[in-house]
C-alpha cells in the first residue's frame, strides 16, 4: 500500500513542479523542445534516484549513528553534485549534441531544489533505503512528466500569435500555473481509489 502511495504521490498527487513548485529553473529553461526535455528528464531521473539511494544510506549508516544531522545539507549536496558531474562526463562523451543543447542547465541540476528536496523529504518521512530510492524515482518521473507535457505545449506556441508582452517566460509561468490548477484534480485520487 505504501509503495502505491509513494508512486502515485510522487508522480501525480504531489508532483514536484505543479504541486510543490520545486525544480522550476530547468523546467522553464529547457522545455522549449521535446528532445531537450527528454534528455533533461533522463538526467534528472538518474540523479534523483541515485542521490535518494546514496543519501538514504549515508543518513542511516553514517550521519544518524554519529549524530551528524547538522551536516545533512552539505553532505547531500556533495552526493548530488558528484552524480551530476558523472552525468555530465557521461553525456559529453555519449551525446555531445544534447550536452550542448542543455548547456548550463545540466550542471545546474546540482542546485535543483527538487533533487535536494526529495532527499530531505526522505529523511523527514524516515523512509528506508528502498523506499527512499522509490520515492526519488517517483518524484523524478513526476518531474519528467511535467516537463514533457510542457515541452509539448511550448512546441505549439511557435505556430501561435502570442502577444508581445507575454512572449517567453511570462507565458511559460502562466501556463505552468494553469497546469498546476489541472493537477489539483489529482488531490483526492488516492482517497477515492482506496477508501
Amino acid at each position, binding site marked *: 500500500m505504501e509503495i502505491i502511495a509513494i508512486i502515485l504521490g510522487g508522480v501525480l498527487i504531489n508532483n514536484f513542479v505543479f504541486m510543490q513548485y520545486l525544480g522550476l529553473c530547468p523546467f522553464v529553461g529547457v522545455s522549449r523542445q521535446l528532445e531537450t526535455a527528454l534528455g533533461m528528464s533522463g538526467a534528472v531521473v538518474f540523479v534523483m534516484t541515485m542521490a535518494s539511494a546514496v543519501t538514504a544510506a549515508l543518513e542511516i549508516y553514517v550521519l544518524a549513528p554519529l549524530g*551528524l544531522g547538522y*551536516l545533512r545539507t552539505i553532505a547531500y549536496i556533495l552526493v548530488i553534485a558528484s552524480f551530476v558531474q558523472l552525468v555530465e*562526463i557521461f553525456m559529453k*562523451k555519449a551525446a555531445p549534441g544534447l550536452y550542448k543543447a542543455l548547456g548550463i542547465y545540466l550542471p545546474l541540476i546540482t542546485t535543483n531544489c527538487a533533487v535536494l528536496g526529495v532527499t530531505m523529504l526522505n529523511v523527514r518521512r524516515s523512509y528506508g533505503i528502498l523506499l527512499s530510492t522509490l520515492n526519488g524515482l517517483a518524484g523524478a518521473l513526476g518531474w519528467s512528466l511535467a516537463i514533457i507535457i510542457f515541452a509539448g505545449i511550448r512546441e505549439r506556441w511557435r505556430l501561435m500569435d502570442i502577444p508581445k508582452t507575454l512572449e517567453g517566460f511570462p507565458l511559460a509561468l502562466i501556463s505552468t500555473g494553469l497546469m498546476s490548477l489541472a493537477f489539483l484534480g489529482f488531490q483526492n485520487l488516492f482517497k477515492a481509489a482506496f477508501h
Partner: protein
Amino acid sequence: MIEAILTMGISGLAFGVLLGVAARKFRVEQDPRVSRIIEVLPGANCGGCGYPGCSGLAAAIVAGQAPVNACTVGGNTVAEKVAGIMGVQASAVTARVAMVYCQGSRDVAEPRAEYVGIEACRALDQLGGVKGCPYGCLGLGSCVKACKFGAMYMSSQGIPVVIREKCTGCGACVKACPRKLIELVPADKQVHILCRSYDKGPVVRKYCKVGCIACQACVRACPLKAISMDRGTLARIDYSLCDNCEICVSKCPVKTIVSYKLREEKAVS
C-alpha cells in the same frame, strides 16, 4: 568534530575517486590548441564575436569556422597570439566602435509626456516612446547598462554617449537597443549621419530639430558619391567609400551629420 571531518573527508574522497575514474573512462579527446587559445583570449565572455563566450570562440577557431582575428576586444595583440598557436599569419583586426544613430536629446526632441514605469528601453518601446519620433532614442539607457567596459554614459540631456577610447566593439549595446539605433562602425571613419528616422522631412521637423529631413544636400555635396538615400527619406553613408573629407558636415542644414574629428579638435582648442 573529528567524526564530522572524517565523514566529509572520506565521502569527498570516495566521490572524487569515482569521478576521476569516470572522467578517465569517458574522456573526450580535445584539441590542446583550444585550451591554449582560451588562455590568450581576454576572458570577458562578452559575446562580441558572435560565439557564446571565449571558450566557444576558441572551439570555433580550432574548427576553422572563425578567423584568428575574430576577437575585436583583444585586437591585434590577441590575434597575433592566436595566429601563433594556429600556425597561420594574422591579418590586422579592423577596430570597430559603437555608434549611436540618434541625437534626439531632450533639448532638441522635446518629450511630450512623462514616462513612469520600468526603467528599460524595451518597456518604453512597447508604449511607443515619449519623444514623438517613432525611430529615435528612448533615453532610458539600457545600452549603458549593457556595457561591460564602462564605455558609455548618458548625457545630461538623456542621450547615450560612447567613449570611443574605451569601446571594445563587443556589440552588447547593439543588442540592448530595442530600436536598433546602435551599430558597430569602423573606428577610423569620422563622419556619421546620426539619424534613423524614415519619416518625411516636414514630419521629422515637428518632433526633432536634428533629424534627417531628406533634403539631399549631402548626397549632392559628396565628391565620392558615398551618401545615398535609404527608402528616399533617410541619408546613409557607405563607409567603404567615405574618406572623411567632411564636406557633407558643413552642408547639412540641420546638423544631422557630425564629424568626430572636428569634435575632438574643438575639444582640444
